[in-house]
């Protein structure tokens, strides 16, 4: 069982990294500033929201959707956004320090595709509650890893004389492509090999 959970975790984090293999959360990935701490905190905020999302999606899938399957998308979006906002307010009250560290990112990510993608993948795959949480943490760790790597590389690239034609998004896409090639090395990790 714990092997299975480890596989879910590593699968979402590196083997099928949410960003580099599933193309989720690309907007923050390409938009992230070159600052390491921002990237890292954005990643943490993502993990946080993903875990909440996973729990919400599990509950909705379990208790509501059997009766109204056509509400899947709408309910996911609205419920996740509201719960995150609610949690955000709670954190603000309970731990202003944590809020300062993560808070500013929360509204930014509540409706990005990684969040919705997690909810959809998790229900499509029929993960249970615990599996869902592990999946969320793995996916968030993968997003964080990708964000942090990209942030570091961007700082370097800013100091380089990238040809004019490649500047901007093109070079970032190509870097993401190379990173994605490199992540192929994790294929089959803990799997059937």
């Amino acid at each position, binding site marked *: 069982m714990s092997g299975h959970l480890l596989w879910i975790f590593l699968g979402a984090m590196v083997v099928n990294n949410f960003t*580099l*293999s*599933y*193309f*989720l*959360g*690309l*907007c923050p990935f*390409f938009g992230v500033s070159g600052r390491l701490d921002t990237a890292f905190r954005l990643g943490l905020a993502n993990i946080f929201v993903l875990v909440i999302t996973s729990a919400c999606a599990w509950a909705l899938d379990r208790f509501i959707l059997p009766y109204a399957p*056509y509400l*899947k*998308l*709408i309910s996911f*979006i*609205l419920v996740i956004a509201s719960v995150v906002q609610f949690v955000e307010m709670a954190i603000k009250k309970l731990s202003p320090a944590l809020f300062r560290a993560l808070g500013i990112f929360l509204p930014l990510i509540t*409706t*990005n*595709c990684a969040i*919705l*993608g997690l909810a*959809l*993948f998790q229900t*499509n795959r029929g993960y249970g509650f615990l599996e869902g949480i592990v999946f969320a943490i793995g996916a968030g760790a993968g997003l964080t890893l990708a964000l942090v790597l990209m942030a570091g590389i961007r700082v370097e690239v800013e100091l380089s004389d990238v040809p*004019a*034609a*490649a*500047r*901007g*998004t*093109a*070079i*970032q*896409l*190509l870097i*993401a*492509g*190379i990173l*994605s*090639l490199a992540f*192929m090395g994790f294929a089959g990790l803990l799997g059937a090999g």
Partner: protein
Amino acid sequence: MKARELSVREELLKGLWRENPVLVQVLGMCPSLAVTNTAPNALAMGVATFFVLVGSSFLVSSLRKVIPKPVRISTYIVIIATFVTIADLVLQAFVPGIHKELGAFISLIVVNCVILGRQEAFASRHGIRLAVADAVGMGAGFTFALFLLGATREILGNGTLFGVSLFGPNFEPWVVMILPPGGFLMLGAILLVFGAWKARAAARAKAAAVEPLRKAAA
């Protein structure tokens, strides 16, 4: 609003090329990359997005006087999600094969930045005619870009276009192109070519501007 008359024709064309949502604005990356490994998938995704975009823009524009500001985004999302669900169900019913290939990414149209962006930036501020023209232009531009991406990836990655073999059985496909890295690399390459082309055009324009001065000096 009356200061500069917006023409339907212009709105239609701008999304297709000058302000192409993928190639110029670089929006909606997640769906563009995830499902463009073949031309049919790309086209299906493009058409679904087109449908959602046009439908939402139509509704949002017609209801723009009624929807109060504070809840407008939530309302847009409800509207968009409705159209996406409809698109999802329809695809599932009529092209189950493609629906299976696209998987969760159809649902992810909901969060496609292009769609909400158009509602907020355009449909909520303009009349139905212009809003629909804008949506059609943007949707067509999005579909075009996705198709470009899907077609190049399928041709290189599989040696086929819409499943039709182009180079004969001995072609050695570049599998990478239909794998995830291929999505990043191909879009990167397309943007690079665009960038080089734009840089060349800019340089030529500058040269043209300087030419008379040079002649005068000589």
